[in-house]
């Protein structure tokens, strides 16, 4: 089997188009995961014990079930209770919810790294709990999480081919279609691998930049 450069070149535009879908799903999935992760970690610290308890097990549940099952569940089961999501929306929600469970752990570590004296100073200055989070704790807890968040961004990016299982026309699904139409799999799958590699490297670079820009401020006490 010989790699046909002309064929590879001819299918590249189609794959690049599909890559947009992949990137789009990753970015929206990551935004959702970042917000939900924060919601979980705050609920888990709620002074209302039952809420903290339920959240704890909910996060544990999300983390301990396979993402593919969650994707199928959102796409095939939810319509039976009247919530019909498009493949793309179901995919983004599944990625976001699944990764939010891991990201909640990242946030938790960040929050626990803030010294106790910061909470006490905030209390002595009569901040409300919400103000304490917003002005004192999160600005210190979040920047150190950037490297870990970057790792999950790349991991989520590489998980997007799972969405092909519910017919999202992302990179892998498009390559499979090209393969079944042309009976050539070598070129499309090689290109898919190459594109994932390229973008992962770019993302890793971006994360390192963000880390230097926001994370490693030598402003600790």
């Amino acid at each position, binding site marked *: 089997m010989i790699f046909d450069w002309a064929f590879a070149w001819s299918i590249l535009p189609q794959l690049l188009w599909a890559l947009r879908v992949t990137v789009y799903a990753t970015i929206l999935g990551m935004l959702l995961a970042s917000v939900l992760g924060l919601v979980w970690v705050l609920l888990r610290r709620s002074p209302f014990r039952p809420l903290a308890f339920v959240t704890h097990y909910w996060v544990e549940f999300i983390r301990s079930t396979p993402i593919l099952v969650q994707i199928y569940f959102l796409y095939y089961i939810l319509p039976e209770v009247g919530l019909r999501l498009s493949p793309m929306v179901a995919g983004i929600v599944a990625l976001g919810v699944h990764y939010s469970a891991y990201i909640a752990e990242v946030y938790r570590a960040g929050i626990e790294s803030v*010294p106790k*004296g*910061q909470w*006490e*100073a905030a*209390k*002595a*200055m*009569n*901040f*409300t709990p919400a*103000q304490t989070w917003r*002005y*004192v704790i999160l*600005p*210190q807890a979040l920047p150190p999480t950037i490297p870990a968040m970057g790792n999950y961004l790349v991991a989520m990016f590489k998980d997007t081919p799972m969405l092909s299982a519910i017919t999202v026309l992302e990179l892998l699904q498009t390559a499979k279609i090209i393969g079944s139409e042309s009976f050539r799999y070598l070129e499309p799958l090689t290109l898919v691998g190459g594109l994932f590699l390229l973008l992962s490297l770019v993302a890793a670079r971006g994360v390192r930049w963000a880390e230097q820009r926001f994370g490693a*401020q*030598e*402003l*600790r*006490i």
Partner: protein
Amino acid sequence: MSDAPMLSIKGLCKKFGSTEVLKSFDMDIQAGEKLSIIGPSGSGKSTFLRILMTLEKPDAGSIEIEGERLWHMKRNGVDVPADRRHLKKMRSEIGMVFQHFNLFPHMTALGNVSVAPRHVQKMSRAEAEDRGRQLLERVGLGDKLDAYPAQLSGGQKQRVGIARALALQPKVMLFDEVTSALDPELVGEVLNVLRELAHETDMTMILVTHEMRFAQEISDRVAFMDHGKVLEIDTPEKIFSDPKHPRTREFLNAVLES
């Protein structure tokens, strides 16, 4: 109300596990009074301040601020444990400066001093920063407004800490060993600020300190604490030159010799 003492503490008890840190502790403090609390470490001095700041909850006893209870409130004529709202109201009368500064590392000196006036007292940004600038000038840091805590020396950090607590204009200020974490050559600049505050303001000041000479100089009264109790409380002259209690004498001999 106005003839009630600024602070009235009765039977205050606090345990950590099985260790009794405060054993039925009583004390009255008048408005404007400068009180120093001295004593060996572990005697409960800092715990007392932390309970006043509501950072710790007492196990028993009462604290009244101008006649109003701190940890309890009246609901339908019955005393019930204070809720968040009551504590917030009471806390607004009290400010605290910490041994380890506890400055917010992600904010400049001016940010540290103006953040609470802005968000707690709902001042405009311009107003809050104006007040912050004045306070930082007052503690001699008018040229460090934009410096982050990591760029300041220990003495400068603590002066920002004092300005930050002053910014909320509390009636009572608590100073918890505010020079203990400083290099010896930086202690003086912080004491100078405290001295100025003691002389120029009518704020009630309670200082837990190991600086005996300083306590003697600025205090109206000095309290000696040991094992969770006030063993002796009197004017600095009496405490330092003619202590009544043998434990006070013992302690002062030990610390003043070195």
